[in-house]
């Protein structure tokens, strides 16, 4: 009976305290609250998971995706892919909607800001395939926006961003505010 109770106590230990860094090869981004994390998870549509609004194929890349960790059923929110280019994780994970995959990257845990179970995914392993890098966002953007081809990073050429800045300015306060800022700072 004593062994049995010990087993129950072990299972009942809060799983949130688990360390998922074992085997991780995640590259540091020198972020204050980063922790390497490698784990197995199922790719889900977050809106579907929470509200029951469930289109086919997790919304075909238009919706935020979650990673429900196999070890503890915690839903991790992957916010970033591995590119330092203002790019999210959905384009990397959308091909694996509903599948169990393994991911490796950085968890962000900052109690002061309320950051919990937030993730930067750097590489993905699906089934028996090799690990793939989670760095395809800019390539997919370029394929979807041939009209915006040119020099410079994607965010300087994106048509929707350019349209908003053309009317609201970089500060978002109107073009006059931008002119004043430029005069004072350049």
């Amino acid at each position: 009976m004593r062994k049995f109770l010990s087993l129950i106590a072990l299972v009942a230990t809060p799983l949130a305290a688990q360390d998922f860094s074992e085997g991780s090869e995640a590259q540091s981004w020198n972020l204050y609250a980063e922790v390497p994390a490698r784990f197995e998870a199922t790719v889900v549509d977050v809106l579907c998971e929470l509200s029951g609004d469930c289109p086919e194929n997790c919304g075909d890349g238009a919706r935020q995706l979650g990673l429900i960790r196999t070890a503890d059923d915690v839903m991790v929110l992957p916010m970033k892919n591995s590119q330092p280019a203002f790019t999210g994780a959905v384009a990397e994970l959308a091909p694996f909607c509903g599948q169990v995959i393994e991911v490796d990257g950085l968890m962000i845990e900052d109690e002061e800001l309320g950051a919990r179970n937030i993730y930067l995914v750097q590489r993905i392993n699906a089934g028996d395939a090799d690990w793939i890098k989670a760095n395809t966002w800019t390539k997919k953007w370029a394929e979807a926006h041939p009209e915006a081809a040119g020099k410079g990073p994607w965010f300087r050429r994106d048509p929707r961003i350019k349209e908003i800045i053309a009317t609201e300015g970089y500060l978002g306060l109107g073009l006059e505010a931008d002119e004043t800022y430029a005069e004072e700072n350049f």
Partner: protein
Amino acid sequence: MRRLLPLLFCGLALPASAAEGTRIQVTGEIIDTWCYYSGVMGGPDAVVGSAHHTCALWCSAGGIPVGLLAEDGTVYMVLKIAQDAGSASGDTQLSLAAHTVTADGMFYERDGLNYIVVSEVVTDMDIVNPTHEDYGTVPPFSFPEPD
């Protein structure tokens, strides 16, 4: 003990989170959650408002989740705005980058994160937080030097 064991197993078998929505109304700023949570661009006060408007556009268009930063400091991950469920690079959320809004919708919580499905943006106050006066632009290169 015989009575205790079924209770223990019953508790372990429950789902980690049984999400059930609650209707709420929240006033706050539509923010870029990655820069806010990661600190990659600086402290939380520097990555909101006018200082961060252009970067917020970049991150929203890039598919990073946007959040609604309420006046009490709570962050709600935005999953839908009215009929637009495009929470990854959607048009509606992009048009609201750095705006302060009052939103009516359904609140969900799971595993330490808050989520909101906005049924209606009741009020859009545009950008009301002139943080560029204190921080310049964040990151600085988001405002390119004029030719």
